[in-house]
Each structure stands twice: as structure tokens, then as C-alpha cells.
């Protein structure tokens, strides 16, 4: 018996599927009128929105590009660029103007407000205006002290420009070969291993004071070597002049304008012209009080004997060649050799507590067993403390350094 074959599906016929799919494709229509209208409305609205967007998007893009560009430029200006190191660092309070250098030699400055600077490295082109005492330490150990108000620009390694104010330059001995130069509008000062001061008086005039060593000074109208104890006046319109400095005499433990000592022997120090004579005058009457002589290097160190009481001292220096400096402003020296008054009125003990009542000279510092005790405006004191032992030592020290002792035993 022949097996009956399974009837084949009409879908097995060639192209049946394709025909049905094509037929299905033909039978599908578009959207319903409502849906079509909805899609059209949405497209119209989107087109309008796109048109609006296209209007401001280019402007926004340009704005964004400009913003990014300005941000990049700002960041570059703030943090970019190079700084040519001068090897110097600055300490003190100053307004700094940092120089940056970009490609093609483009330079710009970043102005900073007055702020404390601690070991900030100065680059070539930097400028600063000292707001307080400012110290610039150079790579070779030399030091510049800028007085408040001094405006200084860094020209290079060991080279500066003083635009205004006063600058004291202590050039390290090891920098003798390196050299150092300081410019002002009025002229140039060059030096190796010395101490000198420069003071810009105005746009056209500056003064240079050599405190130690030799400074070469040059202006448009001349040049000179200014040695210890001399000063030069640099000017754009006047010939360069060199004269003896008014002596700057340092008195041991002296304040700048008033000296109070408890000895008649006054210790003096100064840098003068080599082998110059320092003449000390009574500033009130003009009498010569004494003379001292500097050594071949201009260093003066000696003593002056004064009578007890208040003295006004003024100084002059006289060079071996007969030149004489102007006289310094008088300084008040008080020679006070009298011990301060000290009166102990009562010392009483209660157990370990001891009470001391007394009176000392006004202005004197009172100590009881080494401990400073408070005094009132008349110098009176009333002090209670715990005593170890049975001896109380009371001292009164006046501003000149004279001391009065009082020792009391308590039981």
C-alpha cells in the first residue's frame, strides 16, 4: 500500500509569502484624518520653534565661543606666560606688580593689592611698592631694604630701578665679582661689595650715600667714585656733585632721637670718610665736646665722655683733605647716674603670704624677689605673694638703668 503523502500548505508555494506581504503593504493606508491633522500641527509648531531656535542659536554659539575664548585668555593671563627669574625673593608688605611674558615677546603685568609677602620670588620686570619695611634678598646673599613708599622695578639679576623712595643696599662681600647696579631716572649706581643707600628725591634728582666701600655713580653729565662717608647728588640737569655725608652716628642702645644712659662714657660707631675726624658739638651752645678719628676703611668706633645731665649732641665730619660735612641734627642724650628713690613702708607676713607696701620713683620698674609688680601713677605699690624662705628683695630700676636695692627679712 502506497503511503498517503501529507498535503502541502499553500504557503509553501514559491513567492506565496512575498505576494501576501506585498498585498498587505498595499492594503495599509496612512493615518486617519484626525491623526494626520494632529501630526501636521505638531510639525508646524516644531518648525516654528526650530526657526526661533535657529535665530538665536548662532548668536548663542558665537557668544559661547567668545566666552570660552575670553575665559581661556583670562586663564592664560592669570596663570600662563613665563617669568624670568631674577634670583631675588621679597619679604615684607608691598603691592606687587608681576610681569608675565607670552609668545612673541608679549608682556603684561598682574597688579596685586598690598599684601604680606614671604619669600616670594621676584622675576625680571616685576615691580613693587613697599607699604612697610621690605627686604629683598638676592641670590648671592646681598640684601636690599626698601623704606615704605619705595617703588622698585627688577631689571635683571642684581639690577634694579628705583623709581621713588629710599633703598638701602647691603651688597654681600662674595658678590664683589658679580656686581650690582641700581638705576634711577637721574643716574646709575654700580657697586661691588659695599653698603650704600639711594634716595630718589624727585623725577630728576636722586642722592646716593656710601656707607661702606666705593660706589660708581654715573649721570648724563658726569661720573664719580663715591667712597665711604661721601654722598653724591645725581641730577638730570645739574652736574654730578660729591660731598661728605652728614655723619650717621650710632650710639649704643640709643633710640633715634633721644638717648638715656647711666654712664658718662658714650659708645659711638659710624662709617666716615677714610681717616676723617668726627667732631662732636654741644648742640645747644656750639662748643666742641670731643673728636674721634675713623680708620683707613672709614670705620669709627670710640667713646665720648659727657657730663651728667641732659646734653644735645651734633656731629660733623672733617676729611683729611679739609672738606667738611654739614652738621647733623642734634640728638638729646640724658646722662642719669642717680639711683631711683625706693621707700619700703610695710612688710607683713601671714602664714606663707607676705604683703609689701612701698613707693618708688615714678617710671621705675619695681621687682620683688625678681617678679615685676604693678605700680600706680605715683610709683606706689602694694603687693602680696607667697614667700619661700624669709628674705624679700625689692629693686627699683629707672629708665637709664640705675638700680636701687632694699632687702627685708620677715619672720
Amino acid at each position, binding site marked *: 500500500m502506497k503511503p498517503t503523502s501529507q498535503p502541502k500548505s499553500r504557503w509553501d508555494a514559491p513567492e506565496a*509569502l512575498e*505576494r501576501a506581504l506585498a*498585498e498587505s503593504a498595499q492594503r495599509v493606508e496612512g493615518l486617519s484624518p484626525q491623526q494626520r491633522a494632529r*501630526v501636521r500641527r*505638531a*510639525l508646524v509648531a516644531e518648525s516654528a520653534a526650530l526657526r526661533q531656535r535657529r535665530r538665536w542659536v548662532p548668536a548663542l554659539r558665537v557668544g559661547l565661543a567668545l566666552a570660552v575664548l575670553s575665559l581661556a585668555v583670562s586663564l592664560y593671563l592669570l596663570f600662563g606666560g613665563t617669568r624670568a627669574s631674577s634670583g631675588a625673593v621679597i619679604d615684607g608688605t608691598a603691592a606687587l606688580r608681576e610681569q608675565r611674558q607670552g609668545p612673541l615677546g608679549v608682556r603684561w603685568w598682574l597688579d596685586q593689592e598690598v599684601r604680606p609677602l614671604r619669600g616670594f620670588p621676584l622675576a625680571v620686570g616685576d615691580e613693587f611698592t613697599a607699604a612697610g619695611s621690605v627686604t629683598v634678598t638676592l641670590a648671592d646673599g646681598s640684601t636690599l631694604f626698601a623704606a615704605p613708599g619705595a617703588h622698585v622695578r627688577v631689571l635683571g639679576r642684581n639690577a634694579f630701578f628705583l623709581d621713588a623712595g629710599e633703598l638701602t643696599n647691603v651688597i654681600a662681600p662674595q658678590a664683589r665679582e658679580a656686581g650690582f647696579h641700581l638705576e634711577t631716572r637721574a643716574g646709575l649706581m654700580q657697586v661691588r661689595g659695599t653698603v650704600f643707600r639711594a634716595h630718589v628725591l624727585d623725577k630728576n634728582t636722586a642722592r646716593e650715600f656710601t656707607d661702606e666701600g666705593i660706589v660708581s655713580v654715573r649721570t648724563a653729565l658726569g661720573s664719580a667714585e663715591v667712597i665711604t662717608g661721601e654722598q653724591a647728588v645725581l641730577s638730570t640737569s645739574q652736574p654730578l656733585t660729591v660731598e661728605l655725608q652728614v655723619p650717621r652716628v650710632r650710639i649704643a642702645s640709643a633710640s633715634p632721637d633721644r638717648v638715656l644712659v647711666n654712664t658718662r662714657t658714650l659708645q659711638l660707631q659710624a662709617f666716615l670718610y677714610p681717616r676723617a675726624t668726627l667732631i662732636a658739638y654741644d648742640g645747644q651752645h656750639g662748643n666742641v665736646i670731643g673728636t674721634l678719628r675713623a680708620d683707613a676703611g672709614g670705620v669709627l668706633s670710640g667713646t665720648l665722655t659727657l657730663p651728667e645731665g641732659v646734653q644735645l649732641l651734633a656731629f660733623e665730619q672733617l676729611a683729611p683733605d679739609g672738606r667738611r660735612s654739614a652738621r647733623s641734627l642734634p640728638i638729646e642724650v640724658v646722662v642719669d647716674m642717680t639711683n631711683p628713690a625706693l621707700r619700703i613702708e610695710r612688710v607683713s607676713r601671714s602664714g606663707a603670704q607676705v604683703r609689701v607696701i612701698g613707693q618708688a620713683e615714678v617710671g621705675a620698674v619695681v621687682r620683688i624677689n625678681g617678679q615685676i609688680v604693678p605700680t600706680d601713677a605715683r610709683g606706689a605699690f602694694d603687693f602680696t605673694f607667697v614667700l619661700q624662705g624669709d628674705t624679700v628683695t625689692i629693686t627699683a630700676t629707672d629708665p637709664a638703668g640705675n638700680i636701687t636695692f632694699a632687702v627685708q627679712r620677715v619672720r
Partner: protein
Amino acid sequence: MADDYQSDSAQEAEITARALLQRMVAGDEEAAGAFFAMFETAICRYVRHVVPDISEDDLGDVVQETFLAALRNAAQYRGESRVSTWLLRIAHHKSADWLRRQRVLRRFLAPFTHREESLSPRPRVAGSDEADPSADALAVRMALGKLPLEQRQALVLRYVMGLSVEEVAATMRLKHRKVEWLITQGRVALRALLSSEE
């Protein structure tokens, strides 16, 4: 001669479509309308076959999303493929997105709803071997809906939309071989489904 005519006509249509796209980029509302009119049926055809049980409202949503996306991205059209292929690719993604959303939705709503088949083939007259073209079309569309999505998409793009295998591969972003395999597998599966329903 007829082929030449068809080819010329297709070329003209492509030129028109590209011109409309350019005007759409410039924000021309009329061009957007004309572009929609030009491709509305084709996109509906594709969506209805890939998602056979889609409602009229949902179809409107998918078509709208397709054309809005085309409008927004018209400036990015580089002319590397025909405009219709490019638009079909968008419709392909939008349909897939819609199906994904529906799957998620159904998963959450399953406990609360009873899904009814929206399409059902017209019952064939018993004993009749004669093919009814409209019934076959409906049956094949319903059977398509039971195929895995990728097979369905490949068959629709190839036989409903009339794309070449290369164009299908480009639209689906698949390799040529993979598309060939999908079409072969899809045909076998579709034939089996239709035969079993006879």
C-alpha cells in the same frame, strides 16, 4: 523602458525629498508638511507591519515622533543613504522604542488588564482552497506580530518596504550576513505560523 521610468521617478522623488529636507532645515513649515505627505504612507506601512496590533492613536504617536525627529535632525542628514532609508531608520528606532515602552507598561498593568487581540484573520470558508488576497494579507500581518522583533523588522523592511538586503542591514545597523539569516529564519517561522493556522 518601464524600469527606466521607475528609476527616473525614484530619482526625482529622492531629489524632491532632499530639497524638502533642506527647506525643513531652514524652518520652512510648508516643506515639513510636504515631506510628511510624501512619506506618511510608507512610514505608516512600516509601523503597522512591525507593530500589527497598534491602535490608531498609538500609530499617530509613533508617526509623529518619527517626523518630529526627522525635522529636528534634518541638518544632520549627510545624504549617504536615500532619504526614505534614513527616515525608515528613524521609524525603525521609534517603533522599537514604542514596543519597549509597551512591554514595560504591560508588565506593570498585567495584573489589572485583559489584553484583547485587535487583529483577527477573517475566517476562511471551510473547504475552500482559493486564496483570498485580503484575508491572506491580514493573516500574514497577524502572523508577523508573533515573530521575534528582529526577524519581523527584517522581513518588513525587505518585503513590505522593498529595501535591498544592504539597505535593511544599514537601517537595522546589522551585518549583511546577520540580515540574511534573519530573513531566512523569519520566512521559515512565518510560513510555519501561517500553515499551522490553515
